[in-house]
C-alpha cells in the first residue's frame, strides 16, 4: 500500500530504485488518490496518461506547455489550445523519466492569490476546503499537500509559488530570475516570471530544482548556475547570518498567530547556531506593491496582446476584423486579466509612461539596492511568507486591492530577482503558516541548507490534519 499523503519524492525514487514498486504502480496510486479527493479539491484541470518515462509522477501548473496536452492558463481564451511543443521544463522532466500526472489549476494567466480567478472554478485548501489554497499556483500546492502528486511545478511572478505553498503547508521555491527556462511558459510579466518547484520537503525541492535549472538556448535570459545544486544534509547552521527585516515582520495586516509561529521559528534558527540580527528594508516593503502593480500589468498588457483570435485560442463571431479582436478579448478574458490589461495600457500610454512605468522601474532599482546592501551583512533574510493563513473562498474577490495585499511580503524580493524559499513553520488557528527565506541571487544552496535544518528541527507534519489516518 503506497501512502501518497506521506510519501516524499525522494522516498518514491527509493522505492523505484529498490524495485519495491513499479513506476506504473506509483502512477496508479496517485491516480487513485486523485479519484478519491480531487472531486472536492479541484487541483487538476486535466489528467494525463503518464507521458514521460519510467520514473515517479509529477504535476505541472497549466501555464506550462505540454505537447499534445491542453494548456489553458486557467483561461477561457486558451480553453481549446493544444501546444505543438513542450516547454523546456516539461521536456527536462520527461527526459529525467518523470511521468505527467496532469495539469494543475491556476488563476487565469497566473494573475491572482487564491486560484479563484481560474475560468474553470477555484481549487480548495486540503486543510479546510471552505478556504482557498492560495494562488496563482493553488492547484499545484493543494495537489502536493493532499497527496495527489509527489511534487509539482509552479510559476511565480509576485508570489504564485511561495504564497500557495505557505497556505497549504508545503515547500515552495521561487528560483533566482534567469536560472530556469521560461521557454514554453504562458507569459505574464516576463521580467518577473520564474518556474519553480512545490514539494513536501526541502530536499525534494532541491532535487527538482536541480532537474529544471540551467541555461537554455531557447530562452536568452537564462544563465548557467554558478555552482551545483546540493541536496542539504546538515542539521546545524553555525556560521550563517540571518537577517530579520522589521518591515517584513511587523507589517500591518500580519496576523498575530502568523507572527508568533515565525518568531518561534526564528528562535529555533538561533538554537541551530545561526546568528540572527534585526535589519531594515524601509523602501522595499512600502513601495514594492505599487511598483509591482505597475510593472507586472504593463508587461502583461503587452504579453496578452497576442490573444487576438487569429493564431490560436478562442475567436468570437464578428463580421469585421477589428470587431473580432475586441469581442474575442472581451469574451475570452476574465475580470482580472482585463483589469491588468487596462492598468498596464494606461501606465504605458502617451503622457503617463514616465510618471508610472518609468518611475516604477527606478523604484525597482531602489528595491534591488536595498536588498544588495543587506546581503553584505546577512546570508539570508527571514519573514512570514503570507501575512495571513488561508482565507475563506470569496473573502477577497470583490476587492482587488485586498487580494493584491496577499503578496505584500513576497513581492519585494521578486522585484529584485532574488530566490525565495517558503517552508511550513507551524499552525495558526489550525492552518499552516509559511516562513519565507530570501537570499542573494544564486544562493539557492544556502536557502536549502537553512530550510532543511529548520524543517528537521521544527518537525512540522505536512499532512493536513483532516486527512490523517
Amino acid at each position, binding site marked *: 500500500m503506497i501512502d501518497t499523503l506521506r510519501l516524499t519524492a525522494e522516498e518514491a525514487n527509493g522505492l523505484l530504485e529498490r524495485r519495491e514498486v513499479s513506476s506504473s504502480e506509483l502512477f496508479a496510486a496517485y491516480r487513485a488518490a486523485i479519484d478519491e479527493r480531487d472531486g472536492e479539491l479541484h487541483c487538476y484541470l486535466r489528467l494525463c496518461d503518464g507521458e514521460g518515462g519510467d520514473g515517479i509522477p509529477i504535476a505541472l501548473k497549466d501555464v506550462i506547455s505540454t505537447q499534445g496536452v491542453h494548456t489553458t492558463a486557467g483561461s477561457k481564451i486558451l480553453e481549446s489550445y493544444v501546444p505543438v511543443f513542450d516547454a523546456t521544463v516539461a521536456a527536462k522532466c520527461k527526459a529525467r523519466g518523470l511521468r505527467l500526472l496532469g495539469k494543475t489549476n491556476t488563476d487565469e494567466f497566473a494573475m491572482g492569490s487564491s486560484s479563484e480567478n481560474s475560468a474553470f472554478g477555484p481549487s480548495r485548501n486540503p486543510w479546510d476546503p471552505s478556504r482557498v489554497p492560495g494562488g496563482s499556483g493553488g492547484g499545484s500546492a493543494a495537489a502536493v499537500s493532499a497527496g495527489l502528486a509527489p511534487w509539482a511545478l509552479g510559476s511565480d511572478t509576485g508570489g504564485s509559488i511561495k504564497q500557495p505553498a505557505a497556505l497549504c503547508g508545503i515547500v515552495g521555491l521561487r528560483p533566482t530570475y534567469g536560472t530556469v527556462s521560461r521557454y514554453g511558459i504562458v507569459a505574464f510579466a516576463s*521580467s518577473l516570471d520564474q518556474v519553480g518547484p512545490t514539494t513536501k520537503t526541502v530536499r525534494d525541492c532541491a532535487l527538482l530544482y536541480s532537474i529544471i535549472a540551467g541555461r537554455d538556448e531557447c530562452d536568452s*535570459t537564462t544563465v548557467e548556475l554558478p555552482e551545483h545544486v546540493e541536496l542539504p544534509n546538515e542539521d546545524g547552521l553555525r556560521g550563517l547570518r540571518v537577517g530579520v527585516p522589521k518591515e517584513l515582520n511587523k507589517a500591518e495586516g500580519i496576523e498575530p498567530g502568523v507572527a508568533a509561529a515565525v518568531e518561534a521559528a526564528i528562535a529555533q534558527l538561533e538554537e541551530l547556531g545561526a546568528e540572527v540580527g534585526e535589519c531594515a528594508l524601509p523602501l522595499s516593503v512600502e*513601495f514594492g*506593491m505599487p511598483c509591482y502593480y505597475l510593472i507586472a500589468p504593463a508587461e502583461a498588457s503587452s504579453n496578452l496582446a497576442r490573444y487576438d483570435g487569429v493564431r490560436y485560442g478562442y475567436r468570437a463571431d464578428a463580421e469585421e476584423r477589428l470587431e473580432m479582436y475586441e469581442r474575442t478579448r472581451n469574451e475570452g478574458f476574465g475580470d482580472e486579466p*482585463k483589469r491588468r490589461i*487596462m*492598468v498596464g*495600457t494606461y501606465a504605458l500610454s502617451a503622457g503617463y509612461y514616465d510618471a508610472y512605468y518609468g518611475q516604477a*522601474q527606478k523604484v525597482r*532599482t531602489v528595491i534591488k539596492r536595498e536588498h544588495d546592501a543587506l546581503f553584505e551583512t546577512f546570508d539570508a533574510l527571514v519573514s512570514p511568507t503570507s501575512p495571513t493563513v488561508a482565507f475563506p473562498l470569496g473573502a477577497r474577490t470583490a476587492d482587488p486591492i485586498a487580494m493584491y495585499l496577499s503578496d505584500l511580503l513576497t513581492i519585494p524580493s521578486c522585484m529584485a530577482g532574488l530566490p525565495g524559499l517558503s517552508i511550513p513553520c507551524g499552525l495558526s488557528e489550525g492552518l499552516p503558516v509559511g516562513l519565507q527565506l530570501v537570499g542573494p541571487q544564486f544562493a539557492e544552496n544556502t536557502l536549502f541548507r537553512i530550510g532543511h535544518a529548520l524543517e528537521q528541527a521544527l518537525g512540522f507534519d505536512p499532512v493536513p490534519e483532516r486527512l490523517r489516518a
Partner: protein
Amino acid sequence: MEISQDEVLHVARLARLELTDEEVERFGGQLSAILEAVSKVSELDLAGVPPTAHPLEVANAWDEDEPHECLTVDEALRNAPDREDGHFRTPPA
C-alpha cells in the same frame, strides 16, 4: 484619482478590448482605486537613479546563425480558429 468613462473607453480601445456598459462602470471605479494606490511611486524623488528593466546583469546572448529544425506550417496552424491554404484566415479588415 478619478478615471472618467471616456478615459476607460480610450484605454480599452488602445488595448483592443470591448467592454460592456456594466464593465465600464465597474472597472472605472476599480481602476481609479488601483491607480491611486500605485501612484505612490511618485512620492520618491528618483532623479539620477537608473531604471531596472531586468534583474540580472547579463549581456546580450548571441547564437550562431544556423538553421534549426522548426515547426511545420501544419503544426504552426494547428491551433488556428480558421485557416486556408497554409495561412491564417480572419474576417475582412
